[in-house]
């Protein structure tokens, strides 16, 4: 028993100070693509190679420019490689998008209970969620915790594109969660179907099945991005 204490004391505090202090990924991080418009010749190679058709040309008043939908982007970097001149993979990863008109701040305050709902993920998003409860991200310090039953939950964090074989379970879990409740689509598959798309086996994203309140894009989202999404959902970011 003494050895246990000794080891833990020797290790010290490992908990991150995110979100007080931002975490900036090192160069080379596979983040959201970013266009340097002055170098762009609008050849369209980026949009052609994009595996999830996330890149679209937008028209402004006098010009046009490329945009990427973070909910569809799988951060593969193919656009960066094919372009070589105008696109860089940026350090952007805090990409949560909320569809809430007014966040349920009053309903949840600083005690938010989350239920994970795997609707067919590749387990990468799940692993990052597991990390949140570990000593490094420790989301209990922010008033969030994971619970074992949907009946105890305020928030459903859904990972995966919703497979045919899980659709019924997704409906049942949603129905078992008491209102008011929030649905968070975690990861690109949950946000838009991602690489899985819509097929005989996949519904192509959680919002085709449930109404989604916050999208947290990423393939998978970094643990910090998950925290940002959670804070956004309860009106704290």
């Amino acid at each position, binding site marked *: 028993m003494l*050895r*246990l204490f000794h*080891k*833990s004391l020797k*290790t010290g505090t490992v908990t991150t100070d995110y979100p007080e202090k931002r975490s900036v*990924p*090192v160069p*080379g*991080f*596979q983040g959201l693509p970013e266009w340097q418009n002055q170098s762009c010749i609008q050849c369209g190679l980026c949009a052609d190679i994009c*595996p999830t058709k996330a890149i679209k040309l937008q028209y402004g008043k006098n010009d046009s420019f490329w945009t990427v939908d973070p909910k569809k982007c*799988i*951060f*593969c*970097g*193919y656009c960066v*490689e094919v372009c070589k001149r105008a696109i860089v*993979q940026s350090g952007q990863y805090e990409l949560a998008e909320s569809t809430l008109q007014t966040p349920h701040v009053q309903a949840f305050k600083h005690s938010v209970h989350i239920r*994970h709902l*795997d609707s*067919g*993920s*590749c*387990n*990468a*998003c*799940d*692993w*990052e*969620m*597991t*990390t949140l*409860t*570990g*000593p*490094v991200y420790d989301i209990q310090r922010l008033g969030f915790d*994971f619970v*074992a*039953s*949907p009946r105890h939950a305020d928030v459903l964090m859904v990972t*995966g*594109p919703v*497979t*045919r*074989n*899980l659709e019924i*379970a997704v409906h*049942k*879990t949603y129905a078992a969660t008491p209102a008011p409740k929030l649905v968070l689509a975690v990861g690109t*598959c949950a946000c838009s179907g991602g*690489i*899985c*798309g*819509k*097929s*005989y*086996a*996949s519904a192509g994203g959680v919002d085709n099945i449930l109404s989604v309140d916050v999208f947290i894009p990423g393939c*998978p989202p*970094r643990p910090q991005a998950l925290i940002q999404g959670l804070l956004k959902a309860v009106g704290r970011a």
Partner: protein
Amino acid sequence: MIRQDRIIALISNNFAGRVIITKTYVDELHLKTAKNELPILALKLHDWGFPLIQLTATDERDIHGQFRLFYTFANDNEKFLMVVSVSIAETEPSFPSLTNKVPAAHWYEREIRDLFGLDPIGHPDKRCLAVHEDWPEELYPLRKDFRLDTEVLRTNGQFQYNKVEGEGVMKVPVGPIHAGIIEPGHFRFSAVGDTVINLEARLFYTHRGMEKLAEGKTPLDALLIVERICGACSFSHTTSYCQALEKLSGTEVSTRVNYIRTVVLELERLYNHVGDVGNICAGVGFAFGTMHGARLKEDLMRLNEKVFGSRFLRGINTPGGLRRDISVLDSGLIRVALDELEHDFRDLVGIMLDTNSFIDRVLTTGILLNRTANDLHAVGPAARASGVDRDVRRDHPYAAYDRVSFKVPVYKQGDVLARIKVRIDETFESINIIRQILSEMPSGELTKPLGKIIPFNYAVGMTESARGENVHFIMIGKDNTIYRYMVRSASYVNWPVVPSTVPGNIIPDFPVINKSFELCYSCLDR
């Protein structure tokens, strides 16, 4: 003398004219036989000591009007694979089941029935597997005339669980949605009191149609699908995939590529093994181990991100080489991180293995018998903890594994503790392998263009992931696109052995038994 000479002679002596050799790669031999000869040949290969490691089908009706089955056997001593192909006429969509003689064939045959509509005659269990009970009869998603975006209505099918009857037998259904942050699967326990007398696992909930999705895609586009079959074995999957394509196109990657791939494969094993050792502690409520394991795993994932830009080692591999190089600075980062990890992890496992309350829960818990492991072809740390001395890295060397020396730890006990010990030993071996590789990193080009592949050629790529052998079968169609892709992950073969280890244990021990196998659902379900 080439590796295959002995077997070729053996086969021509036993099967003169009845088995044809169609192709030879350095580490692969392709054989062809007739449907009625298949059971004889397969049993002979099995009896000669070559395990069946993969069985899959293709729908080639649009080329020559037939389906084909591919049986892959591994010859570990002479270090090559044997792929036996058999044609199946559309008018007679069935094949003789091997399951009664070669139990490892059981799930493959059921899956082929579900996805291709070919009936394994004589199979003892013909319930659906890869599709669920609400899938309509006579609709087979991997047939070429089934479109990927077909909308399939649900039927009222019922799934029959095995019957367990008797006084005091209680059924405990668990899942598919679980209490923790875990992937979905349904477990049906039959218990008397706390003691489990039978466990049945119902899986394939996360079936996303990844194999169908890859069809018709270029190798580069399909790569992104392969990377996303599984989060935790992403790099191992892409390596199997790239190796199969490189074999098919005769592309020889540079030594540097092989060295870097080895580093990444071992970094993947490290974050998995260290995380798993910690996670097993969660199965018995030993929070000290769980938290320190999680901390060390996070350190390793941050290292992955620093060096390769991805915590899950995505975006590195590509057919013909690598998309990312490592600098001298990166090598330094890895070295320092490994030194710290080695010291820290040794401390942690020392304490874990000295904690009696922990050992009490894992010793003799969830024993996988050596015979079951062999019969069902279990792989990876789970098999090595039950006395099966197999490791793809040593037995079928790929990447730079023939350039490094390492031990393959094997334990005989087959319990949770043995599975933990295998992972602990392998963690130190991995650190050792990476150090050897980094100390002699050669120069060389990073990518080579993949040559043109002759249509309808096929090959198998194999790696040892943190969970065990990962076998990928690829057949290329016209215009260098994927015609058929089959992923047999380590979890695919290990899932069926898990239920065999639970009877006799109490229900509260199931989480720790399950965690000690640490299987992926998404790798299996695809």
